[in-house]
Every structure is written in structure tokens, then in C-alpha cells.
């Protein structure tokens, strides 16, 4: 009886192995849809989803204008201090003193991509960028100034 059980066990084992091999064998002869992406090679064709959170950016229009008023709500809402807004006072054409941003500093190395700055911004000045290859040799390169040099506040944004 014991011998029969032993042989039965061997046969059962072999059948179960063949069953598993049938699955892998099926995929071996039916390559079908290739699921592997050849990443560095397909870099030029690679398209991320529009919602993809790559990095925080500040979109500028053709006239080098942005929407950031320098209110500091993004800085206040950031959970780990990745954003620093440095403001200056500007005198506009009518001779009124007005607050404007000098530098909008973004520390990519500290960012956790929680989206609170973009969601809470009252003037929609911030947006997600699609860039994701952030590896650099020097950490200081991950501290970015989001407003471009010489940029101004877009007209009509308060």
C-alpha cells in the first residue's frame, strides 16, 4: 500500500509539473503581445500619461509670463518644506506698490509628490511636468527655481 502511495505521489507530482510547464510553454510558442518595454531605447517615443506626476513646474506663456502672485499658499501647504517663495515689492505703472515673486524655489529632492501645492494654488500657477529622469551627480542640482529669469505676472491674474 505504501509503495502504491509512493508511486501515485510521483505520478501526481509529474502531472502537476507538466500542467505548470503547459502554461509557460504556451507563452513560449505564443509570444503575443510583448509586455516588456525596452526603456532607454524607446526614450524618444515614450509618452507619459497626462496626469503623470514628474515634477512641479510653473508654466510660462510665449511672452514669458506666469500666474504666480507670490501668496505663499503652496509653501504653507507643503508637508515637508519643498517650496520656498521669496517675494519682492514692485511698483507698477500706476505707481502702486505690489507684491511679486522674486524666486519660487522648489526642492525636488524633498518633494513627496502629494499634489497639495498644485491643488491649493488659487491662481493655478503650478502644474505637473512630465520629466522623470531626475538622477544627477550633485544634489544641489535638484534645487530648482521655477520662475524663469525676467518673467512677469500674467495680466488679469490677481
Amino acid at each position, binding site marked *: 500500500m505504501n509503495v502504491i502511495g509512493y508511486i501515485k505521489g510521483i505520478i501526481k507530482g509529474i502531472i502537476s509539473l507538466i500542467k505548470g510547464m503547459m502554461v509557460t510553454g504556451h507563452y513560449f510558442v505564443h509570444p503575443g503581445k510583448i509586455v516588456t518595454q525596452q526603456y532607454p531605447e524607446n526614450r524618444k517615443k515614450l509618452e507619459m500619461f497626462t496626469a503623470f*506626476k514628474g515634477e512641479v513646474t510653473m508654466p510660462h506663456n510665449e511672452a514669458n509670463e506666469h500666474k504666480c502672485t507670490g501668496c505663499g499658499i503652496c509653501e504653507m501647504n507643503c508637508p515637508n518644506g519643498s517650496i520656498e517663495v521669496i517675494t519682492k515689492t514692485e511698483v507698477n505703472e500706476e505707481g502702486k506698490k505690489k507684491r511679486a515673486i522674486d524666486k519660487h524655489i522648489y526642492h525636488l529632492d524633498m518633494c513627496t509628490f502629494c499634489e497639495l501645492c498644485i491643488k491649493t494654488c488659487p491662481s493655478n500657477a503650478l502644474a505637473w511636468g512630465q520629466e522623470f529622469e531626475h538622477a544627477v551627480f550633485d544634489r544641489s542640482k535638484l534645487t530648482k527655481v521655477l520662475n524663469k529669469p525676467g518673467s512677469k505676472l500674467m495680466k488679469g491674474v490677481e
Partner: protein
Amino acid sequence: MIEDTVIGSIEQQEYTINMGPQHPSTHGVLRLVVSLKGEIVTQVKPHLGYIHRGIEKMSESMTYPQIVHLTDRLDYLSAHINNHALCLAVENALQVEVPERVKYIRTIMDELNRIASHQLWWCSFGMDLGALTCFFYGLRDREYILDIFEESCGSRLLHSYYTPGGLMKDIHPGFQKRVKDFIKYFRKVLPEYDQLLTGNVIMQERTRGIGNITKEEAISYGFTGPSGRGSGFACDVRKHHPYALYDKVDFQEVLYHEGDSLARYQVRIGEMWESMKIIEQLIDNIPEGDYSAKMKAVIKLPEGEYYQRVEAARGEFGVYILSDGGKTPYRLKLRSPNFSNLSAIDLLARNFKIADLIAIGGSLDLVIPDIDR
């Protein structure tokens, strides 16, 4: 030549080895101090704290919307579900009714997250037992879910998609089609999992009768989730304390009574089928509407204590908030399922071989950042 008596005394001696903190089968920085007699495990002592970040203490200086992104980083494989717990706790405290659309999307996302988590568990469990093929097959299918997440939430693992009152942003227009395509595909592929691993003789021999725990012991150790249900302990929060839309959908609570590693395995495979059933019932009926309720810019909870529990992929996840009326919690306590599941590893692995300890650890599906917090 060493004398026989010396060899004898060495063989009789108990010796101690460290499994981890850097060991691939502990799935993270977990250190198990294992006492061995030959190959037989006599004692397992888990040592924690290698990835302790003080999330509970950090939360005390953060506003409620900010804490959401920290709950991602507990059990990173069920990030959506952890977010859900915190958001529900805050919403219940403020007595805010979220729109129906939000409830639908949250339930679907939770279940997708559960499937993705169980897929990754299936990969790594196969790999713990030496079946490398599983790893590729599981990850291949998980990729479809991660694409769904990336399209709607923007990220693949740590989404921070829920916010107190609703969602960060609306779902992508192609969300429904993509989910339906995935369900259609996964219904075809899931039986392959059984062919490949469940029926495999090596896997059966290495899990059947290994790491037994009775229902009473499971309850006393605080087992929840698939680990508890493998011992016959009906503990599904979705069924017994429904939240979101779980009281409206029809699904079975998967229960096995053997209490061994194989039972815990089968519960998880069964849960993937049930999750697909839940998603199919909801995906066509997502109502139109806002993706968030109107919330104040600064959320302040009224003074008091609030507790909310949800069914994460590994068990019951609970958030306890003690508020003093300010915009940050006075104290935030997180009840993580993995911590109590790990506590029984000494009981489970004792008197089994050291190779079985790997299988038992795999069947508990431990995620270490959830244990240390």
C-alpha cells in the same frame, strides 16, 4: 580528528542565527533572530525598528490633508486603502457627506489596489518557494493596474489620491474602458495562477500543514485580513462594518478553516475573484457629479476621539484621531495589520524547519514599513 563526543555536543547545542535585516525573503528590513536545533526552529524573535520613521509623531505637526501622503508610506502596497481610512475618519468627524461618485471611485480603486497587492504577494510568495516564473507572470498582470492608477492618479505606487472630502482630481475619461479591459483579461489569466503554482506538488508539500494556527489563537494574536480568514476567523471589515459602498455590492467573504500556509494562500486567490466581482458591479454605474465635497480651506476637527477602520489588503487598518479642536491632531494612532500578524511568527514557525519559516513569512504577506511606521 575531532572526537565523537565533541561532534555530539555541537549537534545538541542550540545556536542562533540572524535572518535579516538584509535578507531578500524578509521583504524588507526585518531582523528575525532564529534559534535552531539542527534545522529545526526552536524560537523566532522579531526585532523591529530598522525603518521606523515616526509617522505618528510627525502627523501631530501636520494638517489633515497633509497626513494623507504619510499614510501612503505605511503599507505602500495598499496606499489607496490607507488613504481611505484617514479620509473617512476626518469626514465622519466633520459629518461631511461625500458625493456618490466619490464613493464609487473610491471603492473601485480600493479593490484594484487589493488585486494589485495580492498579485505582488503571489509573485513574491512563489519566489520565496523557489518558483521564479511566478514573479514575472504576477508582475506582468500588475502592470495593467499600475497603468490604470498612473492614468487617473498620476503615480503608480504612492498615489495620495484621496483627500478629506473627495478626490484630488477626477478620473481619466478612459478609466472605465481600461478597467473593463483589465477585468476581461484578468478573468482569463487568473486560472493560470492556479495551474502554475496552486496545483504544483512542490508548493503543496511546502505549505500544507505548515505554520498552523487555530481560530482561537488567531483571534488572541489579533490576526486580521487573509491571514485571519485562513483560520476561519470571519473578520472582513467590508462585510461586518461596511464603509463606502460595500453594503450595496454583493460579494462573498472568503473563509478557509485549515489555518495553514496553504489556507492563507487560497484566501488571497479567492479574494482576487471577489474583488473583480465588486468592480464589475460598480464600473458601469459611476454617477456623474463632483469629485469632491465642498471643504473649508483649513480643516479643523471638533474636539473628541475618532476611529475608523478599513479592510486593507493585509488586514484591518485603523486610524485613531484625538483632536483638541485645532487644525492638527493632538494624537494620531495607526493600527496596522502587519504588526499583529508578525507577532504570531514564533508560534507559527516553532518546530518547523528553517526553510518553512520562509514559506510562513511569505504566507503572512508582511510589509515592513507598515510594522515599524
